[in-house]
């Protein structure tokens, strides 16, 4: 099973990335995919939206899967793997989660068989200039475990600003691929499929 973590700060467009990615994965490769959604709120909106678009979604609500719901995540992954045996499990944690804690939890856990683990970090081009200063440490934590970084909402910034964002990401120590995308229109999302 391929375990894919799609992480990023609040409001960066993680759900939109997943919706777009799942369409492409299903159409081009026929993978069986399950999404585990962790909304930071009693009312899960992202999961509801995904279901309306026909996705298989398990929701973990009312907490954060990198802390209070960590056990819940592990149990859910176990159950999903045992009962549905998907090719890919995509996990969308809350925007405040530390992805390294989630990765450690699932890697160290018996009863979960992971063939490949990929971490996609999404950042918001529109708000990057502000958020990297406000949330530098959480952002650095996310970039530490990234396999690929998607700079989303590129329709809202200039080429110059985009170059600045990519440069800033490099200064945070991330030297992997950085893709500029507009997830809601599917722009430049093809590169992401190379992970699969």
């Amino acid at each position: 099973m391929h375990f894919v973590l799609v992480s990023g700060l609040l409001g960066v467009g993680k759900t939109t990335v997943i919706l777009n990615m799942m369409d492409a994965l299903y159409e081009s490769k026929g993978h069986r995919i399950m999404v585990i959604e962790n909304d930071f709120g009693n009312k899960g909106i992202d999961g509801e939206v995904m279901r309306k678009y026909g996705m298989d979604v398990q929701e973990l609500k009312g907490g954060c899967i990198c802390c209070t719901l960590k056990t819940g995540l592990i149990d859910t992954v176990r159950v999903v793997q045992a009962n549905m045996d998907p090719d890919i499990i995509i996990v969308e944690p809350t925007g405040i989660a530390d992805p390294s804690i989630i990765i450690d939890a699932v890697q160290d856990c018996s009863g979960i068989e992971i063939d490949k683990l990929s971490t996609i970090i999404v950042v918001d081009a529109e708000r990057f200039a502000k958020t990297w200063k406000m949330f530098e440490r959480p952002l650095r934590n996310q970039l530490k475990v990234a396999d690929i970084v998607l700079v989303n909402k590129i329709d809202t910034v200039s080429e110059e600003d985009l170059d600045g964002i990519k440069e800033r990401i490099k200064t945070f120590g991330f030297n992997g691929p950085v893709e500029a995308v507009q997830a809601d229109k599917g722009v430049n999302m093809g590169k992401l499929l190379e992970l699969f």
Partner: protein
Amino acid sequence: MTEDQEFIPTPLAADLKGFFSPSLEGKEAVQKFSDFLKALTLGAVDVGAWSIGHVKAVVEAGEGFVSMSSTTEDGNVRIKGELASVENWTMTVNVIVFGPDADDLEAMLMDKVEKILPGSEVSVYHAEGCEDPDCFDPFCRRPEHVHEDGCDCDRC
């Protein structure tokens, strides 16, 4: 979750239920819901939000639904989906922002409902919080984090 207290957002979730009489054309209804979401975002800033995490809503009416999201302080709303003519509708709204007091945020929501979607039924979901001083999850329900008066654990 980060251990920095300043990164702990204030969450607010609510279900709304209402009707338009006479019914509204789909585009007009979507505009009204979008106006509401924008007002929530701007209102959150007014009550002290120094950063918008997200303000999201999903609206169902008849066979259609729209999802809406606002993530910037100017209240710009991104909309996905469309509605046909709308009479009865339901909305789930989720506000996660940094800075405001939870009660101020809720009062702001009720004010915006009254002004933009008057007559709607509103059910607000409260974060119950946690008694553990080292836990920053506003929705924590871990029984071991409940501490009694007179508890002699290291933390209390």
